[in-house]
């Protein structure tokens, strides 16, 4: 049982990694500051390093998760197992849809669902759930959006148009900072869960921190997931919400990094995913001439709203089956593996990877497309690009003439 939970936890860590590549790397990839492959390689190595740098979050989380999900009731490895199934499957579904949703919320949701089945409704403190998870989820994008809006106005107010490509160099640093901050936070969750399981199974003394091998495998799993890259989500964040220029990318990442660092150091935890989505929207509002696709934003918002209930529902179902005994656990495992494999196979029909990450998604997911349609879309995209290049050079010449006038 413990081995099964650890394997599942590591797979969750992997999905967490490829879900969250987009948070740091969607904007530099969208503006061309970094080549897609280089960007995910940087993100992966910084996540690997970040996971080793700090285990403080893991220590607090292995306690915090129980309290939030359960209110002091003893959690069993079977419940953790069911919760992880809920979280992992929901992560796979949102990845298939290209939705940036919070992996921590999926984890909370799954564990809450499993806890309700395993220990009843009284085991979940809904007031804590509101104040720790639901309200921050509303405040995170608002905060980051507001800051990114102001930062974008500043950047575009100060710099001149022909200088703005210089922001690309800055983007490399700000996005790396976001990656590092992510690494120090997110691998910790899985470490916390594995440590919790080891303690619950009696393999480790209560109250001790994560073992070195746990840190090492968690770091590797999240780095591998990050390197695999959730290209679908990167495309949604980088292209689906708004057009991003280097100046906006820099402003958005600076806001994301500032929000995450401030919130994690001043004791008001905010989700990385929601912060960076908020930043991208804020920067879209901040630049004149940029438009935000509110339809996509709305879809992402709905995704956030249903993450906890949906992961909770799957977690609860898994718990109902798993609590019947060994056979139930086996059934759970088989079903989960089948669903994950099915999603992978289904996703291959409409691959999104380093090569076509720059295509604009007209809808979030269009699984059934013939080759002809795809070719037609590629041609359209090329034509659009050529158009925008012309427009750019045109803008530049007018800008230069304005500068000449001023001089």
């Amino acid at each position, binding site marked *: 049982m413990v081995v099964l939970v650890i394997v599942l936890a590591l797979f969750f860590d992997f999905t967490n990694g490829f879900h969250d590549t987009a948070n740091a790397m969607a904007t530099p990839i969208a503006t061309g500051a970094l080549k897609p492959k280089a960007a995910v390689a940087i993100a992966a190595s910084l996540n690997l390093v*970040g996971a080793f*740098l*700090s285990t*403080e979050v893991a220590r607090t989380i292995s306690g915090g998760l129980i309290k939030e999900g359960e209110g002091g009731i003893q959690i069993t490895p079977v419940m953790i197992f069911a919760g992880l199934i809920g979280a992992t499957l929901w992560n796979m579904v949102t990845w298939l849809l290209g939705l940036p949703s919070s992996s921590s919320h999926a984890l909370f949701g799954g564990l809450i669902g499993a806890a309700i089945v395993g220990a009843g409704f009284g085991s979940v403190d809904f*007031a804590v759930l*509101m*104040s720790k998870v639901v*309200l921050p989820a509303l*405040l995170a994008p608002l*905060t*980051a959006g*507001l*800051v*990114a809006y*102001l*930062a974008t106005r*500043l*950047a575009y107010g*100060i*710099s*001149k148009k*022909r*200088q*703005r490509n*210089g*922001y690309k160099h*800055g983007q490399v*640093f*700000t996005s790396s*900072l976001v990656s*590092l*901050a992510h690494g*120090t936070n997110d691998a910790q969750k899985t470490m916390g869960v594995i440590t919790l399981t080891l303690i619950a199974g009696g393999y480790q003394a209560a109250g001790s921190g994560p073992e070195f091998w746990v840190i090492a495998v968690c770091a590797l799993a999240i780095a591998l997931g990050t390197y695999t890259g959730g290209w679908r989500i990167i495309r949604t964040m980088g292209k689906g919400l708004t057009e991003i220029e280097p100046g906006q990318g*820099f*402003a958005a990442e*600076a*806001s994301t*990094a*500032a*929000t995450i*660092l*401030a*919130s994690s*150091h*001043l*004791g*008001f935890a*905010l989700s990385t995913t929601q912060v960076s989505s908020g930043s991208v929207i804020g920067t879209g509002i901040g630049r004149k001439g940029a438009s935000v696709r509110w339809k996509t934003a709305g879809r992402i918002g709905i995704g956030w709203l249903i993450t906890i209930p949906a992961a909770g529902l799957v977690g609860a179902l898994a718990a109902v089956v798993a609590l019947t005994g060994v056979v139930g656990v086996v059934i759970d495992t088989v079903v989960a593996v089948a669903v994950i494999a099915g999603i992978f196979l289904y996703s291959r029909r409409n691959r999104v990877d380093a090569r076509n990450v720059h295509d604009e998604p007209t809808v979030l997911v269009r699984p059934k497309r013939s080759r002809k349609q795809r070719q037609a879309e590629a041609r359209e995209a090329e034509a659009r690009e050529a158009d925008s290049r012309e427009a750019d050079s045109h803008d530049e010449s007018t800008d230069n003439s304005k500068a000449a006038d001023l001089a």
Partner: protein
Amino acid sequence: MIDWAAFFIVLVATLVSACLVVTLYSVGLRLIDGTRGWRRPAGIACFVLCGLVVLYGVYLVIPYFHR
């Protein structure tokens, strides 16, 4: 229920730090583009200051430094 004071502090800290980084980098970009003699060094100074703010971020990320 919710700790509004903590949230307000986070909001202000975020605003100040993000705007500081963006302003410094933008002023740096603008100055380094100039032709006059004093502008380039001033621009580089802005980049260095901006880099220091980012390094402070790295310092905050790694708990080893400030335990």
